């Protein structure tokens, strides 16, 4: 029912652990069987280690949350040497989620990660939480295409470009990265948001702004997935507020070939497997042979 081939990679289900909310996967090995996850997109990697932001990094908002982790990670090398070998003991496709502070860094990271054990590259051109960071690449079709091209040149892996919703026209960015050679796109990253403590008159977030995720953003995410899927011919990975199998189905109906689950894992560590089961039940209830039959069925 759930088996899915995404950019040539066979996954046991179309439900992917989104980057940043599932650590490096290993943190969840005691909570669920990692071998049953569709794919794991690891915490966003940068070329050098990053300490992330100071101050408060998480804040709840109505049916959503803000985060400004700021890409804390041990850097690509430590990932490859210390973490990937452990991950490779599991039978689950790995997506390396990468963020560069300039275009060259994206190329270098792609080259370093063009190794066994990595199944996809997910190119984050949309993180709102780092200064002079990658969000800038994602809001402009030209620079988005440049990043895509340099990554493609440096890797043999399928390249998924992760788009930001903080744009006027998602279609122009989607079309630009497709033309630049992307093998797939994923969306949405978080919406730029802010919360203010009305008692202290200070921003809640250490970084002032944060990225909004969770059920609150789902209508925006579904709309953008729908628009992007209508415009491109490469597979789309949909995400933004998926909390249930029916939410996953909604994104697939909008045109997503696979989905990612982010914030839901913060609500429950077993969210991904729960959602996977619910999606399977949904498919059975609708008499499907494979869940892929619903992709793009909402016209």
């Amino acid at each position, binding site marked *: 029912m759930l088996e899915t081939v995404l950019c040539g990679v066979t996954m046991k289900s179309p439900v992917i652990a989104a980057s*940043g*909310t*599932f*650590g490096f996967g290993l*943190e*969840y090995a*005691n*909570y669920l069987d990692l071998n049953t996850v569709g794919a794991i997109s690891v*915490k966003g990697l940068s070329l050098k280690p990053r*300490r*992330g932001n100071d101050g*408060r*990094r*998480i*804040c*709840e908002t*109505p*049916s*959503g*949350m803000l*985060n400004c*982790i700021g890409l*804390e990670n041990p850097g690509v090398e430590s990932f490859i040497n210390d973490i990937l070998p452990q991950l490779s003991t599991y039978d689950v496709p790995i997506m390396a989620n990468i963020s560069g502070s300039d275009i060259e860094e994206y190329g270098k990271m792609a080259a370093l990660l063009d190794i066994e054990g990595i199944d996809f590259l997910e190119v984050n051109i949309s993180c709102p939480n780092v200064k002079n960071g990658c969000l800038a690449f994602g809001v402009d079709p030209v620079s988005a295409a440049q990043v895509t091209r340099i990554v493609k040149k440096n890797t043999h892996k399928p390249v998924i470009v992760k788009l930001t919703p903080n744009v006027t026209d998602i279609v122009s960015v989607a079309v630009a990265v497709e033309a630049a050679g992307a093998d797939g796109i994923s969306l949405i990253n978080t919406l730029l948001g802010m919360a203010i403590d009305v008692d202290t008159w200070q921003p809640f977030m250490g970084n002032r702004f944060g990225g909004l995720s*969770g*059920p609150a953003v789902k209508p925006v995410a579904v709309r953008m997935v729908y628009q992007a899927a209508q415009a491109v011919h490469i597979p789309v990975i949909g995400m933004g507020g998926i909390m249930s199998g029916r939410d996953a189905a909604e994104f697939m109906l909008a045109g997503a070939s696979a989905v990612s689950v982010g*914030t839901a*894992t*913060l*609500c*429950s*560590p*077993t969210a991904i497997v729960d959602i996977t089961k619910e999606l399977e039940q949904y498919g059975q209830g609708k008499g499907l042979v494979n869940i892929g039959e619903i992709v793009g069925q909402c016209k």
Partner: protein
Amino acid sequence: MTGIKQIGTIIYNEPVAQSVYKMVVNAPDIAKAAVPGTFVHFGLMQDSSHILRRPISLAETDIEKGTITIIYRLAGEGTTCMSQLSAGQVIDCLGPLGRGFTPSDKPVILIGGGVGVAPLLFLASKLKKENVTVIIGGKTASELFWTDMFDVQKIVTTTDDGSAGKKGVAADVLAELIQSTGAAIVYTCGPTPMVKKVAEIAKACRISCEVSLEAYMGCGTGGCLGCVIDGRGGKRYKVCHDGPVFDAEEVFFRA
């Protein structure tokens, strides 16, 4: 620790003081696995607009009855939601999580303020009564309701306004009690200024100090990096996973 997810039935949920509630939940697997200093991450099932869990330290467990007890202060919407649940209703529990206190069989001091006293209750119950001295600080007499809950050798109390116990803050009496009890370790939990001061005094007295910290949390399970704090030597610690209990040296004296 790897937490267990259990939908627990609430057995008791009543105020124990102004804006402070005690809740007892049936959650046998969590009760069995828990050690002092660990916490439970509660999901607010009844209101789905609150998507994040709320971390609350364990104040007591009863393995035979299969129950866990927490003591929590109404801090905002989430804890208010929790306070509105009645016995018989259910609550989503994920725990025990984190790294707890390192128990000692030497004389020890437990020093807490506010709801920070809660995890110390659990700790005291696992230590030899005659070894334990508890210091509780509060703004005023009504904040010292905890004293009845402890079954230990000695309890010393302080209040800012002198309405009960010694006038002053809890840390004021610490150095003296370390000396008089020959304590080998100080365990502390409470407001940041207080626990920092406690850690400094312990350091000055050359004994170890374990401190339970708070951070705004996302997952509670180490996956989101939402709760990260600075540790010694430029290290970053996850409060949910590497803590909430830390050696004070690691987190306060970082040079």
